[in-house]
């Protein structure tokens, strides 16, 4: 068992996923791209949920902001992808900073509902601002970034654009995960968990709790924005429902399904939920119903999510093998 533990799973999985384009299936590439993006989205939420103890019902707002920012810059203003991508993160972080400032003044339920209310504002803006966002119809024909440079790399030039984009997504999300991992393992990350455990005590060891919460909010928002930017291109179009509360519900359930007590839990949850989504929506349009049922089952039977259940099972196996 300890042998398995030593394996650095994250890089191994990442490298394995990189091989997907060479499997030759459009669908696998499509699925893998979607999973990678949502994994980032979910892990970004977990910075707030699992690490800082803040339940946000409106995380999709920043996903939406990032998506629109990147798409609008690239298509309407011809901004090159690297710049547009960075701008997406900055824009999302800016929104998160402003919203976060108001939200952290309240606790628990107030906080959750405030995040929802602000997310609905973002949705309403996207929905109504026809001239800039395309309104209800959405913002379509988002261009791919210029991937011509990939032709210079041996082996990559022959791939389809979708596959090349997948590799770009893997690279960018990979970097994002490394950064987020560093963050949660840093002293700053320790402060966040301290705040989660006991905000009152945290204040009296010298932490300006609100400031840290706002910082966590902004960082989580920024990475959600990055995920949104990538998704807008992947989806070839950005729509108001990127910021709708149901998107927030999905990413929240991903985090809980995978397990918010660990760093990679939400990524696992994203993969599981995306796969489930594809299976279910092939059969029925009532995906929210299934999602709701999944959440209820989780709440009653598996509060620790997939990773939590696995960890619990492993502890049981170990205890039994010791007995």
């Amino acid at each position, binding site marked *: 068992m300890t042998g398995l533990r030593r394996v650095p799973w994250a890089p191994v999985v990442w490298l394995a996923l990189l091989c997907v384009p060479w499997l030759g299936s459009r669908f696998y590439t499509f699925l893998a791209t979607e999973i990678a993006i949502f994994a980032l989205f979910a892990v970004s939420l977990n910075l707030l949920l699992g690490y800082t103890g803040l339940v946000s019902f409106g995380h999709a707002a920043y996903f939406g902001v990032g998506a629109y920012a990147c798409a609008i810059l690239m298509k309407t203003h011809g901004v090159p992808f690297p710049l547009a991508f960075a701008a997406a993160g900055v824009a999302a972080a800016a929104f998160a900073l402003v919203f976060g400032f108001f939200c952290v003044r309240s606790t628990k339920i107030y906080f959750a509902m405030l995040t929802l209310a602000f997310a609905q504002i973002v949705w309403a803006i996207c929905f109504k601002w026809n001239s800039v966002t395309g309104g209800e119809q959405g913002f379509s024909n988002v261009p791919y970034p210029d991937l011509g440079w990939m032709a210079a790399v041996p082996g990559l030039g022959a791939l389809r654009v979708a596959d090349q984009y997948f590799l770009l997504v893997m690279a960018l999300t990979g970097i994002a995960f490394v950064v987020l991992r560093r963050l949660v393992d840093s002293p700053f990350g*320790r402060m966040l*968990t*301290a705040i989660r455990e006991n905000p009152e*005590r945290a*204040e009296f060891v010298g*932490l*300006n709790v609100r400031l840290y919460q706002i910082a966590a909010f902004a960082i989580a928002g920024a990475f959600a924005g990055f995920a949104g930017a990538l998704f807008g291109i992947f989806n070839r179009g950005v729509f108001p429902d990127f910021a709708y509360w149901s998107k927030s519900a999905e990413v929240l359930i991903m985090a809980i399904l995978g397990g918010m007590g660990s760093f990679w839990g939400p990524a696992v949850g994203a993969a599981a939920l995306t796969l489930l989504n594809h299976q279910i929506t092939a059969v029925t349009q009532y995906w929210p119903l299934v999602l709701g049922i999944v959440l209820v089952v989780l709440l009653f039977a598996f509060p620790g999510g997939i990773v939590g259940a696995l960890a619990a099972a492993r502890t049981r196996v170990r205890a039994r093998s010791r007995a």
Partner: protein
Amino acid sequence: MLEVRNLRRSFGGVAAIDGVDLAVAAREILAIIGPNGAGKSTLFNLITGHLRPDAGSVRLGDRDVTGMAPHRLCALGVARSFQRTNIFPKLTVFENVQAALIAHRGRGRDLWSRAEGLFRDEAQALLRDVNLLDKADTAGGALSHGNQKQLELGIALAGNPEILLLDEPTAGMSAAETRDSMALLRRIAAERGLTLLFTEHDMEVVFSTAQRIAVLHQGRVIAAGTPEAIRGDAEVRRVYLGDRQ
């Protein structure tokens, strides 16, 4: 060291603290006692910035700290323990103290270093001081009540405070735990030259530990002095035992 002048605070028209004057000298051990509802916790909350006073002032040394936010007061050398044990339950004992050290040393803004081994030596020294080194890897929430109080003391000491405010430090403890806990406290206070201000119900603790005692009743200090003086004070006797004489 710490001076409270004419502190007042009301809740919905009822004066919880009604003009309290108090002074604690450096390295002194002062106990605040009083019947239930006298306002002891409120007084603490006013001093440590959890509540804003309606009137009056709190001075630390020559600095006015009235209504200062807790996290800023903490940086000035004030540490506090709470009535209900206040630790970080899901973090290990080691991580509890490490977090306190990170916060106090201002490393909380560090987004890039690895926190795992940070301040390991200092944390272990602190744990040794409060007799918890052997439990370093236990989750805070899994400790016994007495051990949790020790941990809380460790967290408070992480900031190298000059003055320690303790809200009912032996609440919920058995006689043995109380003895050990107070002995530990006295030792640490002596070793580090701390000023101690604590509230208590347990009179044995108060009279065996405090150098001076202040008696709080209905939001006012009705008597303050050495333990002998307080023991003999008629007003204090009346408040505690009723009008018997």
